[in-house]
């Protein structure tokens, strides 16, 4: 090995190494283990609330530096599986666990709603750039493949004065399993008997028609690119990306535009009849200002903790989440829980033993 030829290589490697070290941002480090005696709590699950959960766990850690809560957004399905298997201390899901799933659990699993999300119908009609009003029949018909043209009476009826084209509607839905889909099909199952029997609800369904896009960004991308298309995306996504979306008629007959207030109103309206275990769907609720396609997202917490220290932290975190945590939701475009729900949940926290 010639001595001469090794030096340039070594120099390059050293310079490259230094450059990498200088360029990488100090914040982007793996979560450092908490200072001992520290406590590490692991959770996993839904992707939809990941930004707010991430913020919460970070803020909580600042308040309690010895506690580190680690959350992996692997999907609601993963969250449910891991909490059933006991590999994580808590889970998170956009769709509540079914009775069957709860039956598989070794210890009782409690559901705690954390924030609210909503789905909005976004569309791309080349000849029209305004706001459309959708009736439940229109949305169900479109996604069932029954309403095939934009100038169908069910659409022109709710949008008088709008010159809708006679082009075919291109339906776009999610290809990946997702809580966003769950909310959408849960709503459709409530407003359309045909949808309920033919397709049903789940994080993935057998869509009668339509193209599948991966993630909110996939659906948004397909809708933006494909003329005469309609799809559904998360409200937060639509807001952050300045996407046009339509109003939906709620059960009181009002065409409501989704925003944080109307979404919180949906939960408030449902709070009256909320079951004790919070496993409730709040789509199509009563309430004149309620947005009809909204949903809770839940933390899944075992009712019994062997580890006393962990239990204390989780109980404390849940209290914090329901008070200070809720204030952090709006800046991130998540709708906070209405106070009726917060009150009910505060009582339910005592079930964690």
């Amino acid at each position, binding site marked *: 090995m010639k001595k001469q030829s090794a030096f340039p290589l070594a120099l390059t490697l050293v310079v490259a190494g230094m450059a990498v070290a200088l360029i990488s941002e100090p914040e982007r480090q793996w979560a450092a283990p908490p200072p001992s005696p520290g406590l590490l709590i692991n959770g996993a699950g839904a992707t939809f609330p990941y930004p707010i959960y991430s913020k919460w766990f970070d803020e909580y850690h600042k308040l309690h530096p010895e506690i580190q809560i680690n959350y992996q957004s*692997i*999907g*609601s*399905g*993963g969250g*449910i*599986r891991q909490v059933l298997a006991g590999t994580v201390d808590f889970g998170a899901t956009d769709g509540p666990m079914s009775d*069957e*799933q709860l039956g598989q659990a070794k210890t009782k699993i409690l559901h705690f709603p954390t924030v609210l999300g909503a789905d909005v119908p976004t569309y791309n009609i080349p000849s029209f750039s305004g706001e459309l009003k959708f009736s439940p029949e229109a949305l169900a018909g479109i996604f069932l493949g029954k309403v095939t043209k934009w100038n169908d009476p069910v659409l022109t009826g709710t949008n008088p004065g709008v010159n809708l084209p006679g082009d*075919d509607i*291109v339906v776009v839905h999610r*290809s*990946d*399993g*997702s809580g966003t889909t769950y909310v959408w099909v849960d709503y459709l199952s409530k407003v359309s008997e045909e949808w309920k029997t033919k*397709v*049903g*609800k*789940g*994080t*993935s*369904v*057998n*869509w009668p028609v*339509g*193209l*599948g*896009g*991966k993630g909110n960004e*996939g659906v948004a*991308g*397909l809708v933006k*690119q*494909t003329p005469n298309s309609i799809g559904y995306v998360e409200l937060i996504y639509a807001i952050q990306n300045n996407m046009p979306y339509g109003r939906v008629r709620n059960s009181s007959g009002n065409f409501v535009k989704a925003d944080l207030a109307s979404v919180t109103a949906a939960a408030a309206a449902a709070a009256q009849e909320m079951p004790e275990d919070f496993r409730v769907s709040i789509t199509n609720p009563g309430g004149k200002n309620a947005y009809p396609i909204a949903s809770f997202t839940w933390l899944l917490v075992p009712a019994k903790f062997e580890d006393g220290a962990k239990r204390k932290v989780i109980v404390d975190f849940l209290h914090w989440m329901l008070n200070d945590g809720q204030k952090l939701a709006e800046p991130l475009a998540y709708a906070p829980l209405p106070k009726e729900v917060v009150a009910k949940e505060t009582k339910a926290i005592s079930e964690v033993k």
Partner: protein
Amino acid sequence: MAHLITLLFASAILLITVLLVFELYRNSALAREKFGWQFLSSRTWDPVFEQFGALPFVFGTVVTSAVGLLIAVPLGVGAAIFLAELAPPRISDALAFIIELLAAVPSVIYGLLAIFTLVPLLRNTVQPFLKQTLGFLPLFQGPNYGVGLLAAGIILAIMIVPFVVSISREVLMAVPVEQREAALALGATRWESTWKVVVPYARAGILGSIFLAMARALGETMAVTMVIGNDPKITSSLFAPGYTIAAVIANEFTEATSDLYIHALIELSLVLFILTIILNGLARLLILATQRKGTAHP
């Protein structure tokens, strides 16, 4: 000693493959029991009512890979012949280097490229053109979205061409110069010596590169799922959306909650594994069959 170590390595690889198949088989038990052979013939994929069938995905996988190969093989072998036989050596090396770089581009980048350039191109220009000229064929009928089987096939072709080109070029360059000289000495033209002597001599290697390309195409996930439309239906049109096995597993596995659902997805991956083996086997039989009259010797 060296004999034993290399034997150990070979056995390890075999063992890993066997373990893989065993695990796939074991973890698809619920789905296999419930659906049996109907899994392969059923067209329904319904996670809500838990009816699962593999046929649309097998169809999509085979069709997109076939389209990809149909485009990539002539293009790739032709490019390889040019680079190995007809191009000046320096150009050949430079171009070969660039083509090999294409193989290193991550799949997601190809997917993004496809979404932003290929899909609009297909929707606005290529597919209407095909519809006008070849629209009498059911392959080119139906609504035009841009995304669909054709888009997936084309992006697969772009992804697998580097494999065909780089391996075929190496194999062609490895053909002994005596073969070419002998052909030329017998009065063949430059092209005749290339096409009738050199290429057949390298046939085994070229076919090997095609197998590799086919295997990549069958398993390709991200780029395909971004442009195929993700609709598990079987249609006769290339403009229609479709779905592949790899794409549906990537899309649905993390959110699959029920055990039957997960087992069905794992059974799909078992189907893909066996499909790859079958296609490879058929391709090898093809070589054997044509080897009788050819001159290729590995």
